[in-house]
C-alpha cells in the first residue's frame, strides 16, 4: 500500500494501532474509542498522535476532541460512502484543524481530486493500485466552480 502526501508518494512513518494492542514507539494512529480512554497517556508519549474515525462520525461531535492532534484519519469503508467528505470539510473549515487529514480504507485514484478539495492532504491508496498513475488525479482539473477547503472562493470570486 502506498501513502500519498501533498501530491507525492512518501515513506509513511505512521502506524495504525488496533485496540488492545500496545502502542509501539513512534507516530501512532489509534481509534477514537481508545483516544477517549487513554488520551492522556497517549498524548504523553514521545511520538506523534493521530486518531482514526469511521465514516459515521459526526464532525460537530468529535471536532473539539481531535482538532489539536497531529493527524486525523477518516475511513472510507466503501468509496461510495461520501460522508467522509463532509467530516473533512467541517474539521478544516469549522474546527480549523491543521494537522494531517488522511483518507484510509477504500481509497481510489478517481476520488483523490474531490478528497483534496475537501481538505485531505494524505491518502492511503487501496492495496494493489497504481500509485504513480494516481498522482495524475490531482491535475485532472485546472478550474473548479465552487469553493472548497483548498480554496474557499467560488469561481465567481476568481473569474
Amino acid at each position, binding site marked *: 500500500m502506498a501513502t500519498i502526501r501533498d501530491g507525492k508518494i512518501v515513506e509513511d512513518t505512521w502506524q495504525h494501532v488496533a485496540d488492545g494492542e500496545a502502542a509501539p514507539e513512534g507516530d501512532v494512529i489509534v481509534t477514537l474509542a481508545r483516544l477517549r480512554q487513554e488520551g492522556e497517556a497517549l498524548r504523553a508519549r514521545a511520538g506523534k498522535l493521530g486518531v482514526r474515525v469511521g465514516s459515521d462520525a*459526526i464532525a460537530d461531535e468529535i471536532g473539539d476532541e481531535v482538532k489539536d492532534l497531529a493527524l486525523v484519519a477518516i475511513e472510507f469503508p466503501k*468509496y*461510495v*460512502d*461520501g*460522508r467522509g*467528505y*463532509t467530516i473533512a*470539510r467541517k474539521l478544516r*473549515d*469549522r474546527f480549523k484543524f491543521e494537522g494531517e487529514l488522511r483518507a484510509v480504507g477504500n481509497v*481510489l485514484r*478517481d*476520488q483523490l*481530486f*474531490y*478528497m483534496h*478539495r*475537501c481538505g485531505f492532504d494524505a491518502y492511503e491508496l487501496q492495496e494493489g*493500485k*497504481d500509485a504513480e*498513475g494516481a498522482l*495524475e488525479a490531482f491535475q*485532472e*482539473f*485546472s*478550474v*473548479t*466552480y*465552487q*469553493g*472548497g477547503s483548498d480554496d*474557499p*472562493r*467560488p*469561481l*465567481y*470570486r476568481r*473569474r
Partner: protein
Amino acid sequence: MYQYDQYDQRIVEERSRQFRGQVQRRLSGEILEDEFKPLRLQNGLYMQLHAYMLRVAVPYGLLSSTQMRKLAHIARTYDKGYGHLTTRQNMQFNWPTLEGVANILDELASVQMHAVQTSGNCIRNTTSDQFAGVTRDELEDPRPYAEIIRQWSTFHPEFAFLPRKFKIAVNATPDDDRAAVYFHDIGVKLVENGAGERGFEVLAGGGLGRTPHIGQTVRKFLPKEHLLSYLESILRVYNQFGRRDNKFKARIKILVNALGIEEFSRRVEEEWEQIKDGDMLLPEEEIERVKKHFAPHAYETLPDSDSELAALALDKDRAFGNWVKNNVRPHKVPGYASVTISVKDKEIPPGDLSDYQMDQVADLADRYSFGEMRITHTQNLVLADVKVSQLRELHEKLVAVNLGNANANHIADMITCPGLDFCNLANARSIPIGMRIIDRFDDIDYMNDIGDVNLKISGCINACGHHHVGNIGILGIDKQGVEHYQLMLGGSAGNDASLGQIVGPAFTQDEIVGAVDTVLQRYLKERESADETFIHCYRRVGMAPFKEALYGDN
C-alpha cells in the same frame, strides 16, 4: 442563453479527457467494473437491458440550434439514428458503445455540452419551467438561478457520493408550477416577501419513487445572496444523516419525514448560520453576469396579438386551428407566441426524435425562434419565441416532418418511462401502451372534448414516468409473470400538488387502453360543463363513479 467562457469550456474539456482515461483504465482492467460504475454513471452512462445508454445534460432544457445539430450528428454517427427526450429535460441515446462515448463527450464539449451528473448519486441536472423568460405569469426569469445552481453543483467535491440521487428544480410562477417543485429533493421558488423584495422559498423532501412525498417548506424567504450557502447546508445535512443502509430509504424525503420538517429545518439553519456570510455569498455582480446571458431577444415591436391568436384557433383549416388552440400559448411580448412541438405520435415511441427531425427542428428554430429551443419535462420541444404571423408557415413545416400533432396537454400528450423495452428494473412495457393510447385517441374532436388532462406511465414502482402525479396514472406491475397495469386517478404535479389513488384491481395489456377510455367517457358524463377539467371533476365527484364505470357495482 448561457455562453461558456474560457473557464466553463476548460471544465468540460478536462472532463472529457478524464473520462477517456477512465475508459482506457477500465478496458485495461486497472479499474474494476464495480469501481467504474459510479464513474460512468456520473458521466451519464447507464447499463440498460441490452446496451449502454448515454444521457446528455441539457441544463434546464435549453438548447441552441447548433447544439441540436450536434445531437443529430451524434444520433446518426454513434447511435441508431434517434435520441430520446427525458423527464429531466435531457436527451439520451440508447445504443452507444463504451469506446464511442469518449468521442461523444469531445463532440459535446465542442458545442458547450456535456453529460456530467446526469445519473449517479449526485446532484442531477437542475430543471425549470419550459416557458421561463417568455411567460406572462412569472416574477422573473428563473433560468439564471438554475444556471448558478448548475455551476455550483458541477463536480461539487463534497456531494459526489450522496446516499442517493438528488434533484433540484426552480420556478418563478406564483400561480402555476410547470417545474414540479413540490416533487423534487429541493424545490426553489422565486417569491416576493411582504416588503416587495425578491428571494426564494426553499422546499425539501419532495419526490416520487416508491414512497411519494410532497415537498415541505424549509424556509419561507431566503434572500437571493444566500441561495448557494443554503443549498449547501441542506446537502450537508443530507450527506451526514441520510440513510445509506437501504437504497429504497436513502432519498432526502425519508430523512425529512423521519426527523420531521421542524428538526430537519433546525439542522439546516444551524449549519447555515456557520457558513452563510462566507465566500459563498452570491454577489449582485455575479447574478447580473449570468442574467445578461438570458436577456430578452431582439423582438420586433408588433401590435398586440391576443385576439389574432384566438381567431387562429378557430381557423377553418382545422388541423392548424386545433394546433394553435392546443399547442400555442401567448407570449409576454405582443406579436409573439410560444409553440409546443408535440413529440407524441402513434407511430413513434413517445419522446423519440430522429436525427433528421432534430436537424429540421434546429433549422426551424433558426428561422422562427432566434435559434433556440427547449426540451420539456413532458418529453416535448418548445419554440418559445415565434411571431404569430409566422405560425401557419411553421405549422406546415412541422407537419412535413411529422411533428405537427395538435395534442399538447391532452390525453395523447403523455409521459412514459422507458419500461421493459429498455430498463432492467421494469415489470411491464410502457412505450407500447403509450403508443396504443395515442392511437385510441386519434380523433382530435374527441380529444378536444376531453380537454386538458395528463397521463403518466411507469413500468415499475420506481416511478420514472411520474405515475403518482398523473391526473391519470398507469403503473406496470407483474402478476404471476404477466404484465399488468394499475390505474390511478387524481394526481397533479402543479401548485395544487396531489398524489393519485389506485382505482382497483389491475388490468391486462389488452384491457388498460379501454379502461382509460372508460374513465374519460365517465368524466364526460359527470362534468358540470366543458370548463370543468378532468382533475377538477375528479376532485368534486371522487373515485366512486369511475370505479363503478370500470368494475361495475361489485
